[in-house]
Every structure is written in structure tokens, then in C-alpha cells.
């Protein structure tokens, strides 16, 4: 007791555990929908899925189909891998760099081959899945929650890719490229905030 009393209050304060806010939001509809909602409430992840979907759609139907398969699968595999390891990973830098690349590719109107698009989608899925693994750790049925997130990723990728594939009018193709420039710009600002130490 005497020894404890000598410890400066500030040191005690410094040893307090930091609360983790990376857990899933409770949707009230069970772990599957908690996982799906997790994606919709994570702007960084959502933006990455939008970017992959738009780029895949811009690249054509074959690329879009491969991206819609590889992105959710890689996401789920990486999240499950992170769960088995018992931790997620902080991959903010790489994710932001990838987001800038995806945005610039959309803005430049570049059409990627199916294999390159599938690889980029898989890389995005792996990074974000691993990064999000920590969020599923506290969940009652973490595997079901991962499935919910992967399903949401699949649906969003399909919607975005289908939208981009169906664009025919010139102004809509331009709007798509403007959207890409916005994604790249947001990525660049995020890179700045990471350098600044705020995210």
C-alpha cells in the first residue's frame, strides 16, 4: 500500500488501459447483419469497395466479374486469418496508397485486363480484411459476422461495377472519371492526415 501510494498519480493514469472502439455496431438483427453494417459504417472500407467496383466496371464485364469474386473472397479470407491469429493489423498507409492508385486509375479512364483487375481487387480485399479482423474479435459469432461483411462487399461491388458497365452517355462516363478524381483526392488528404498523426 505504501509503495502504491508513492506512485505519482500521473504514472497511474498513464498505465490505464486504452479502450478499444473497433468492435462491431449492434444492428439488432444478429451477427450477419452486424458484419454487413460494419462495412457501411466504415467510410475508409466503403470508399475502397466503391473504387474497386467503379474501376472494375470501367474495365469491362470480364474484369467486373473477376473483381466481384476476388474482392469479397480475399476480404473474408484475410479477416478469418486475422481472427485465427487473434489480431488485426494496422495497414492504413498501404490502404490509403492503394485508394489513391484506384482513384487515379478511374480518373484516367484506364481499362484493366481481367487478371490485373482481379489482382488489384484481391489485394484490396486482403488489406481491408486483415485490417478489420480486430473488429470481429469481440463478436459472438465472428465467422458469421465476417460472412456478413463479405456479403455486403459483394453486393456493393456488383452494384458499383454494374453501374459503371452500364454507362453509355458521354457525360456519365465523365462523371465516373470525376468521381475517380474525388476518390484520389480523398486518399491524398487521408495520407496527409496519417502523416499528421490524425486519422
Amino acid at each position, binding site marked *: 500500500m505504501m509503495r502504491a501510494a508513492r506512485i505519482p498519480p500521473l504514472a497511474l493514469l498513464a498505465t490505464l488501459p486504452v479502450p478499444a472502439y473497433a468492435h462491431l455496431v449492434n444492428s439488432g438483427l444478429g451477427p450477419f447483419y452486424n458484419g454487413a453494417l460494419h462495412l457501411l459504417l466504415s467510410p475508409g472500407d466503403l470508399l475502397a469497395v466503391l473504387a474497386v467496383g467503379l474501376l472494375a466496371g470501367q474495365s469491362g464485364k470480364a474484369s467486373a466479374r473477376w473483381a466481384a469474386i476476388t474482392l469479397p473472397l480475399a476480404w473474408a479470407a484475410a479477416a478469418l486469418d486475422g481472427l485465427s491469429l487473434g489480431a488485426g493489423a494496422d495497414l492504413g498507409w498501404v490502404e490509403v496508397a492503394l485508394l489513391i492508385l484506384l482513384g487515379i486509375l478511374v480518373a484516367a479512364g484506364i481499362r484493366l485486363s481481367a487478371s490485373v483487375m482481379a489482382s488489384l481487387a484481391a489485394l484490396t480485399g486482403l488489406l481491408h480484411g486483415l485490417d478489420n479482423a480486430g473488429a470481429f474479435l469481440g463478436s459472438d459469432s465472428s465467422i458469421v459476422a465476417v460472412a456478413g461483411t463479405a456479403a455486403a462487399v459483394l453486393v456493393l461491388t456488383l452494384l458499383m461495377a454494374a453501374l459503371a458497365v452500364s454507362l453509355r452517355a458521354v457525360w456519365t462516363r465523365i462523371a465516373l*472519371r*470525376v468521381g475517380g*478524381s*474525388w476518390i484520389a483526392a480523398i486518399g*491524398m488528404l*487521408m495520407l*496527409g492526415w496519417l*502523416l*499528421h498523426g490524425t486519422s
Partner: protein
Amino acid sequence: MKHLQPPPLARILLTALLLWPLVVFAHVEGGAAGGFLSGLHHPISGLDHVLAMVAVGLWGAQLGAPAIWLLPVAFPIMMAFGGLLGLSGIELPAVELGIALSAVILGALILGAIRLPLAAALLVVGFFAVFHGHAHGTEMTPGQSAILYSIGFVIATGLLHAAGIGIGLIHRWDAGRVALRGAGSVVMAGGLFFLWRALA
């Protein structure tokens, strides 16, 4: 004489509306919504920024395709690059001067209906966008979500360009072309005012 009576549903709705509790807005927006709204508000909070961003759209509309959409594609990317420089702690000399000059130069280009080559037009817009990003991209209230601030910031910038393009579409009519050049003179005058303030 028969009195006009509101229908029962309308009476119920009116009563419910009168009994509706008032929401207290005694707190600043916090968390996610605060970050997004703060980012959305920043580009429109200063007239110098608004003038320049609308002018980019006006000039793009005056130049026609492909500048009409390439300028608004280049601006946010270069603006974010300016924000990146600011957040990295890299100082730019005379940021306020650069912002004021952007309105002067863009206004003058619109007023003179000057058709620069596409590469030169992109260079002009990209150069000035760096100053705007450096000044505004870094001004987030502490504690807010950086990504939502960035999303709001970029969306507001893009919508200002869109407003400029929308106004600039009057260029297809003879009278509209004259009005557009007049709008350029307003942008230029505003820029000169901000330039005078920056130098004073």
C-alpha cells in the same frame, strides 16, 4: 353557411406537430456527422475560395470539351496534394496571395475569353489548386473524423465546380457568352479585393 373544416387526418397531424417536442441544438456537431459537415462547410466558408472554384467551372465551360471536365478532375487532385503538403508540415510561401491571385488570373482568363492550350490550362488550374488545398484542407476541428472531413471537403469543392459549369453553360448563346465574360470580371474584381487585403 357551412364552415370549412380540415379533414380528420390533417387535424391529427396538426395536433401532433404542435405537441412535437423541440430538439435542443445546444451542442456543436460531434463525431462522424461533425467531421463531414465541417469538411462540407470549409470550401464554402471563404468567398475567395468560392470565387476561384466556381471560376474553374466557368472557364472549363467556356473552353468546352475536354477542358470542361478535365479541369474539375485536375483541381481536386492538386488541391488534395496541397492539403497533403500542409499536413506534412511543408510550408508554402504566400498562400493567401496565391489564393487571391487565382481568382484574379482565372477571372481575367474568363473575361478575355482566352483559350490556352489544354496542358497550359491544366497547369494554371493545378498550380492554384495547391494553394487552396494547403490553406483549407488542413483546417479540421480536433477530434473529428479525418476521413469524413476529407470526403465532405472534396464533395463541396466538386459541387462548386459543378455550379460553375452549370452557370457556364450559358456560353452556348450569344448573350450568354457576354454574360459569362461579365462573370469573369466579377471574379477578377473579387480577386483584386482579396489581393489588396492579402498585401495590406
